[in-house]
C-alpha cells in the first residue's frame, strides 16, 4: 500500500526519487523453433487506452498513431504489413514487385479473402481505396504520386506512379488500409459523422463503440491467416495515465496503451505483472530555427550540439531508461542508420572554440557571451504536458550555459507550442515563431526513410515537415535521388550521405528517445510482441505464428 502510494506520488511528479535503473525489458517468450506448441485461446483481454479521439476507427476518424492506428488495423488489413522489426512482409498481397523503372508496382492478392460481411476482397477494392483516398486525403496517405490503378483481374492490382518512389512498399502498400467499395461508395464525406461500425477484412470486428467509454472487438473466426488467439478484446477508455496504470495493478485491465515512467518500473515487474518494450522511436529533438541569427550559422548550431550532454539527460531525466540520439538524425536501431553519424558530438572545448571563432565573447564577464553587444540569451520552447521533456529542457539549458549561451525554458501547452512552430500551416513560407525548441516526433518518423526528405527539404511542397526552415541544395538533391532509388544498396548509400550532411549542418539534433515500458498482467495474456519503437498492441501479438 505504502509503496503503491509512493509510486503514485512519483507519477504525479510531486516526489523526486531515484531508484535502480536496470534496463531489463521483459518480452514475450517465443517458442523454440521446431517445437510445436498449441497456444491456448484467451476468452477476453482488457486493454485500457488513454486516447479519447479514436471515434469509430475508420481511416478518416481514427486519431493517434499508437494505439489508434494499430486498433484500426485490427479491423482493416493492408496489402503489405511490417514485421515487429519494421521489415515489410506480404499480407493481403501474396507477392508484390516493381518493374526496373520503379513506376509500375504489381500486387497479387490472396484468393478467397473476405470482408467481415462475407463479401470478397478483390483488386476492385484496392483501386477504389486509392481513388477514395485521393478524393478525400488524409495526412498519412497523400497519394498524389499514384497516376492510376489497373486491375487486369480480380486478384491483381497494378499501381502506375508518376515518379519512382523507393519507399512505396512502406507507404502506401504497408500502411494504407483497404476499405470495401460496396460500403464506402455510398459515403460522400468520410470526415462527417460516420456512426457505422467499420467493415474491414482484418482479424477483428469492432462490435461496439461508445464515445468516451469503450471499444469492443470480437475475433474474426474466418480470418485468412487463422483464428486470432484472443476471442474478445475490450478496450475501456480511461481518462488519465495514473488511473490506467492503477487499473493494471488492481486487475481491472490486463494491459495499457501508454508507457510507464522509468521510476515505476520496479512496481510493474512483480506480483503477476510484467513489462514489455524496448527503445522507443518517439524522440525529442532540439530544433534550431535556421532563419534566426545566430542560428543561421552552421558553426553556431554545431557549437550548441557539442555543448549538450545527452547522456546526462538520459541518466537524470529518464533514470537511464532511454537512448541518446544520433547527430545524423536516425535512431541507431534503424537498419539504414549511418554508423559514422551515431555518436554524439559532446565536446565543450570544441563548442567554446567554435563560439570564439564566430566572435561571440563574454565581454562583460556575466557568464553569457555577446553577439554584437547583445547577450546570447534565447527562449527554449517545450510543451508542458510531458514532465520528462520539461526536465530535459532544464538540464539542457544548464548544459549549454557552461559554454556561455543562456536558454530560458518556456513550457507551453501543446497546441500553443505547436502553433509557434507551424504558424497557420504555412511551412516553408515562414519559419516559425521560435528560435530554439525541444520537439517530439512520433515513432513513424524513424520508420520510413522518406521522412528524412519531408523533414529537411527546402521546397515547401516536399519539405512539409521542415520546421527548422533548413535550406541546402546539396541535401535536396540527395533526398530527391534517394526517393527514386529503387535499388536498395544505392538508396542506403544516399541515405547515409544525407545523414552525414545533417550531422554536419545540424538543423535539428535528436537528444533522447525514452524507452517504451508497457505494463501487463502475465496471467491473462503473456504473448505480447513489441513492435520496435512503437508498442505492443498489434496483429503480431494476437495471431499465432505460422
Amino acid at each position, binding site marked *: *500500500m505504502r509503496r*503503491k*502510494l509512493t509510486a*503514485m506520488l512519483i507519477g*504525479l511528479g510531486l516526489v523526486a526519487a531515484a531508484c535502480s535503473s536496470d534496463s531489463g525489458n521483459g518480452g514475450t517468450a517465443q517458442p523454440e523453433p521446431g517445437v510445436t506448441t498449441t497456444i491456448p485461446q484467451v476468452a477476453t483481454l482488457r486493454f485500457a487506452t488513454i486516447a*479519447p*479521439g479514436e*471515434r469509430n476507427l475508420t481511416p*478518416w*476518424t481514427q*486519431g*493517434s*498513431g499508437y494505439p489508434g492506428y494499430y486498433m484500426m488495423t485490427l479491423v482493416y488489413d493492408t496489402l503489405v504489413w511490417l514485421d515487429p522489426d519494421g521489415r515489410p512482409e506480404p499480407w493481403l498481397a501474396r507477392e508484390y514487385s516493381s518493374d526496373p523503372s520503379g513506376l509500375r508496382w504489381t500486387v497479387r492478392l490472396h484468393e478467397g479473402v473476405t470482408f467481415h460481411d462475407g463479401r470478397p476482397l478483390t483488386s476492385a477494392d484496392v483501386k477504389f481505396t486509392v481513388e477514395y483516398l485521393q478524393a478525400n*486525403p*488524409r*495526412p*498519412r496517405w*497523400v497519394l*498524389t504520386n499514384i497516376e492510376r490503378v489497373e486491375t487486369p483481374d480480380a486478384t491483381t492490382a497494378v499501381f502506375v506512379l508518376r515518379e519512382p518512389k523507393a519507399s512505396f512498399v512502406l507507404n502506401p502498400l504497408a500502411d494504407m488500409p483497404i476499405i470495401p467499395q460496396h460500403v464506402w461508395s455510398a459515403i460522400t464525406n468520410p*470526415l*462527417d*459523422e*460516420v456512426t457505422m461500425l467499420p467493415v474491414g477484412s482484418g482479424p477483428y470486428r469492432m462490435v461496439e463503440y461508445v*464515445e*468516451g*467509454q*469503450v471499444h*469492443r472487438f470480437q475475433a474474426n473466426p474466418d480470418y485468412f491467416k487463422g483464428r486470432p488467439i484472443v476471442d474478445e478484446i*475490450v478496450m*475501456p*477508455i*480511461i*481518462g*488519465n495515465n*495514473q*488511473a490506467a496504470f*492503477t*487499473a493494471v*495493478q*488492481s486487475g*481491472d485491465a490486463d494491459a495499457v496503451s501508454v508507457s510507464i515512467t522509468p521510476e515505476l518500473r520496479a512496481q510493474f515487474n512483480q506480483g503477476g505483472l510484467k513489462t514489455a518494450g524496448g527503445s522507443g522511436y518517439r524522440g525529442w529533438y532540439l530544433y534550431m530555427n535556421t532563419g534566426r541569427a545566430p542560428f543561421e550559422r552552421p558553426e553556431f548550431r554545431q557549437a550548441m550540439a557539442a555543448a549538450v550532454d545527452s547522456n546526462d539527460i538520459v541518466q537524470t531525466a529518464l533514470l537511464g531508461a532511454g537512448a541518446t540520439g544520433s547527430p545524423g538524425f536516425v535512431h541507431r536501431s534503424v537498419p539504414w542508420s549511418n554508423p559514422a553519424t551515431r555518436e554524439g558530438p559532446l565536446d565543450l572545448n570544441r563548442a567554446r572554440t567554435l563560439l570564439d571563432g564566430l566572435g561571440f565573447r563574454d565581454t562583460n564577464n556575466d557568464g553569457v557571451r555577446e553577439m554584437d553587444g547583445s547577450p546570447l540569451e534565447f527562449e527554449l520552447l517545450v510543451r508542458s504536458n510531458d514532465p520528462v521533456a520539461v526536465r530535459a529542457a532544464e538540464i539542457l539549458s544548464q548544459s549549454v550555459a557552461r559554454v556561455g549561451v543562456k536558454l530560458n525554458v518556456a513550457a507551453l*501547452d*501543446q*497546441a*500553443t507550442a*505547436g*502553433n*509557434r512552430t*507551424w504558424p*497557420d*500551416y504555412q*511551412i516553408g513560407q515562414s519559419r516559425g515563431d521560435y528560435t530554439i525548441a525541444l520537439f517530439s516526433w*512520433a515513432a513513424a518518423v524513424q520508420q520510413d526513410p522518406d521522412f528524412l526528405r*519531408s523533414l529537411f527539404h527546402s521546397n515547401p511542397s516536399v519539405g*512539409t*515537415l521542415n520546421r527548422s526552415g533548413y535550406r541546402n541544395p546539396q541535401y535536396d538533391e540527395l533526398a530527391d535521388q534517394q526517393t527514386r532509388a529503387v535499388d536498395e544498396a544505392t538508396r542506403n548509400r544516399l541515405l547515409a550521405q544525407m545523414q552525414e550532411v545533417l550531422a554536419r549542418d545540424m538543423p535539428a539534433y535528436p537528444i533522447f528517445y525514452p524507452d517504451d515500458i508497457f505494463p501487463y498482467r502475465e496471467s491473462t495474456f503473456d504473448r505480447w510482441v513489441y513492435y520496435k519503437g512503437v508498442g505492443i498492441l498489434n496483429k503480431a501479438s494476437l495471431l499465432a505464428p505460422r
Partner: protein
Amino acid sequence: MAAPAAADATPVGPAVPAARPRRRHRALRRLAVRGPQYLLIVLVAASANFALPRMMPGNPVDLLLGEDANRLPPETIADELARVGLDQPLVVQYGRYMAGLARGELGCSFRHRKPVSTLLRERLPWTLLLVGTALVVSTVLGVALAALAAWRRGRRRDTGSIALFTFLESTPPFWIGLLLLIWFAATLRWFPLFGHMSLDRTTGLARVGDIAHHLVLPAATLVLSSVGAVFLLARASLLGVIRDDYVLVARAKGLRERTIAVRHALPAASLPIATSVLLRVGALAGGAVIIERVFTYRGVGSLLLEASFGRDYPLLQGGLFVLTVIVVGANLVGDLIYPRLDPRVQR
C-alpha cells in the same frame, strides 16, 4: 435587445387569484427587474465563450484533418476550413454563433462530428447527477457538523474540526480524488476505478446500484472539497444567532438544548446558508471538470477538457454556454426566493 420583451411578459393587474396575491405580484415584479440583468450577464458570458477559446494560440486543423495535417495539399486544408466556416472573418463567425444561439443551435463538434446539443444531452445528466449529489450531501453534512461545532464552540473538538475543514477547503480536489482512487478503488477494491457505469450492460435495479456505485468516489471527492466552505459559513452564521436574545429566552423557558438548536437557531441561521447553496453551483461545476477527468466520469466536464486540448471551438462554446446558463439560472432562483426567506429584503 431582449430586455423590453422580458418586461412586457410581466402580467399587469390582479391576474393572480386569491392566494397571497401581493406576494406573487412582488416576485413577478422582481423578475421583471432582475430578468434583463441576468439576460445581459448571459449575453456577455456567451461572447466570452466565443472569444476565449479563439484567444488561445493554436488551431483545430489537426483535429479536423488528422495529425500532421500540413502534409496535406494546401487546398484540402483550405476546403476543410471553409466547410466549418473558419475561413470567415471573426466578426462573421461571431454573428453566426450568436444567431445560432438565438435559434437554439450550438453547431457541430469538430472532433466528434456530431451536433454539440446531442453530445451535451448525453453527458449533461451525469454532471448534474454528480454536482447535485455533492451539493445536497455537502450542505446537509456541513450544516449538521457546524451545528454540533457551534454548540460546543471553543472546546477541543470544535477547534479540531475547524482545522480539519480549513485543511480540506484548501486541498486541491484532484489530489483528494487521486487519494480516494488509490485507497478505496485500487487498494481496498470497494469501488470501481473509472467510468460512470460498468462496461457490461445491466438493467433495472442492478443498473441503479451500478450507477450509484460508480458515483460514490467522484461525489465524495466533490463533497470533501466543498464541505469545508459550508461548515465554516454555517458555523459563523449559527454563532451569530446563538448570542441573540431569543435564544437566551428559550433557554430561560427551560427548553432542551437540541430543541433550541433545531427549532430556533437553525432557521434563523439558514438564510446565508441557503443562498450559498445556489451560489456554490458554479464552484462545484468547475470542480467537476477536474474530478470527471480523474475518475473518467462521462460528464460534460471531461468532454470540455478534451475539447480545450484540441481547440474544438463549437463544443467549447456550446458546453460553456450551457454551464453558464445553469449557473446564472441557479443565481436567479436564489435571487427570487431570497425575499421569501428573509422578509427584511422586501421593499
